[in-house]
């Protein structure tokens, strides 16, 4: 008999909920089962299944490094049935959590190296965990370069936090670059005027024109909309990056999170992968060996 039921969720209370943009909320949760919370150890890049009873579950990546054992931070974009239901909840309400799932980013393997984080839009959420982890273990990592592509100023997530890094990151050896797509965005244009070495209009890959990226001793970590990966990888391969040192985290329909429901299967007969349990973090080497991954 198996006592543990992987499909059984645990209740978590919403401690804090903040609208970051028109469609994205930052939610802080407290796990109510303290025994469960002790074993709830997660790495940047892992995700949880977040459920609203009567509506369903959705896979959401954890957007912060683990600070306290019963706390969990999520960034939820209002985009489907479940996430709309999550947005309707208030502080004090209950969400049902399963996880953490997936492999996460290899923070230990990357120790001693420079980090290049490339994010597009909501893709910054899992990378924020990487960034926080690296900043709280600052001596273990070299220069941290962040390239963050947004649509416009109002779509920028964790605006205060990232603008602080944009202006003052250098003293912690963090170089924060920003790109924006909406050419009529005045706020972003102001940022560009202030720091033309750090901000420019266009897609995120344009930022490779501002920063000389070297493959030596550098790990690249990518997350963004599906279309973004191959363009970022192209830039990195032009610079002779090792495919095994390019990490990316993928989105798929992950209903169960534990490699059973089959929706997130990718690849060919040669190499079938479940994004939820074999990933969601893969290297570009994996992508070269798994058709349909990016």
């Amino acid at each position, binding site marked *: 008999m*198996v006592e543990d039921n992987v499909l059984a969720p645990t209740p978590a209370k919403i401690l804090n909920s903040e609208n970051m943009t028109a469609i994205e909320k930052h939610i802080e949760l407290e796990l109510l089962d303290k025994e469960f919370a002790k074993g709830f150890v997660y790495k940047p890049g892992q995700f949880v299944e977040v459920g609203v009873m*009567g*509506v369903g579950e959705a896979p959401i990546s954890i957007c912060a490094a683990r600070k306290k054992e019963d706390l969990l931070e999520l960034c939820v974009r209002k985009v489907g049935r479940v996430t709309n239901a999550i947005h309707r909840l208030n502080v004090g309400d209950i969400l049902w959590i399963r996880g953490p799932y997936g492999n996460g980013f290899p923070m230990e393997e990357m120790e001693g190296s420079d980090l290049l984080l490339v994010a597009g839009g909501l893709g910054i959420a899992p990378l924020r965990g990487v960034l926080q982890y690296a900043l709280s273990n600052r001596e273990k990592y070299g220069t941290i370069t962040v390239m963050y592509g947004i649509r416009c100023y109002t779509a920028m997530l964790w605006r205060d936090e990232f603008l602080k890094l944009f202006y003052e990151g250098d003293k912690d050896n963090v170089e924060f670059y920003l790109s924006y797509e909406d050419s009529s965005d005045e706020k972003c244009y102001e940022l560009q005027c202030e720091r033309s070495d750090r901000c420019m209009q266009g897609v995120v890959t344009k930022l490779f024109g501002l920063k000389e990226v070297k493959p030596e001793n550098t790990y690249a970590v990518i997350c963004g909309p*599906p279309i973004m990966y191959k363009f970022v990888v192209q830039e990195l391969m032009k610079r002779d990056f090792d495919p095994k040192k390019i990490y990316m985290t993928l989105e798929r*329909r992950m209903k169960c999170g534990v490699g059973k429901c089959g929706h997130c299967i990718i690849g*060919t007969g*040669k190499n*079938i992968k479940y994004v939820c349990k074999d990933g969601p973090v893969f290297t570009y080497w994996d992508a070269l060996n798994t058709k349909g991954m990016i």
Partner: protein
Amino acid sequence: MYKILAKENLDPFFESLKKIGKVHGPVKVGRSSYDFREVDSLSEVDLTYTRTMIPPKKFFVKPKETIFEFDEEKLEFKESQNSEVNVILGVHPCDINALKILDSVYMDETPDKYYIQRRESSFIIGIDCTPDEYCFCSSMGTSYAQDGFDLFLHEISRGYFVRIGSEKGYNMVNDNESLFEDAKPEDIEEFKQNERKRIEAFKLELNISGIQDMLDLSYEDSVWKETADECFGCGTCNLVCPTCRCYDVVDYVGLSLKSGERVRRWDSCMLRKHGLVAGGLNFRPTRVERLRNRFNCKGGLTDGSLSCVGCGRCTVYCPAEISFVEVMKKIRGEL
């Protein structure tokens, strides 16, 4: 361990199965279809059946099942319990090998409680079969069940040559000693000859050597488009496949809107919604991608075994008459 079950003991053998649990066996329904149904007497069962439309996976991966009931007001949920014991009589080797593939999915590092409960509480009795023109399990290495059953019956002239595959099977034989006798050299010889004849009877063949690379090399092949043009995208192949296990999860809410149940039910990778994520992006937007994904999934490995067992169901029941073997042969450049 091997035993003989004489013809005249088959009826009492059947009766003794009822003491273990609910007995299910292949029953003829309609003109040419079979289904595993609960049975009360041996006469209802046709042990010489070709194949059931729905494989015995339905006993373990339920077409629809409640995961738990919830009550938001009380902040609790109640796991659904399962206490029934099923005896499944007359499972073919391909289907037993298919269950082993499901085992590796559902009993891996994150074991599925519901599946395991049902697997552990069931009693499986295999039976050998005569291949028809759709069977190709001999090509897939699944024409013989080495394990994954409690008892396995091989027909011989004086009854059945019985292989004991588990402790449960051993106990059943011990509890009903009088029904069984030891195998004699002539029984063993007959079993061997029957196996030889059975394997010789396969007409359909599929060369699986290097099939994984062949599939990988055919990612952009026109065969996917050509086959998808014929395919209705109905998902029948998924439902009848003994190794297909994709499931969807749905919440059903009671009138109070506070209580209800979370249910999982069979899903199909041939349906449009399968690769769809919130926001409208579909990772397998057309039938071409979905069909290619299905064939690659079947041709891929699950824990070292090919994920197709060659039962022929997807071909037999496809309303568009798409032949699995034919598509794979096109992939190999043989057609």
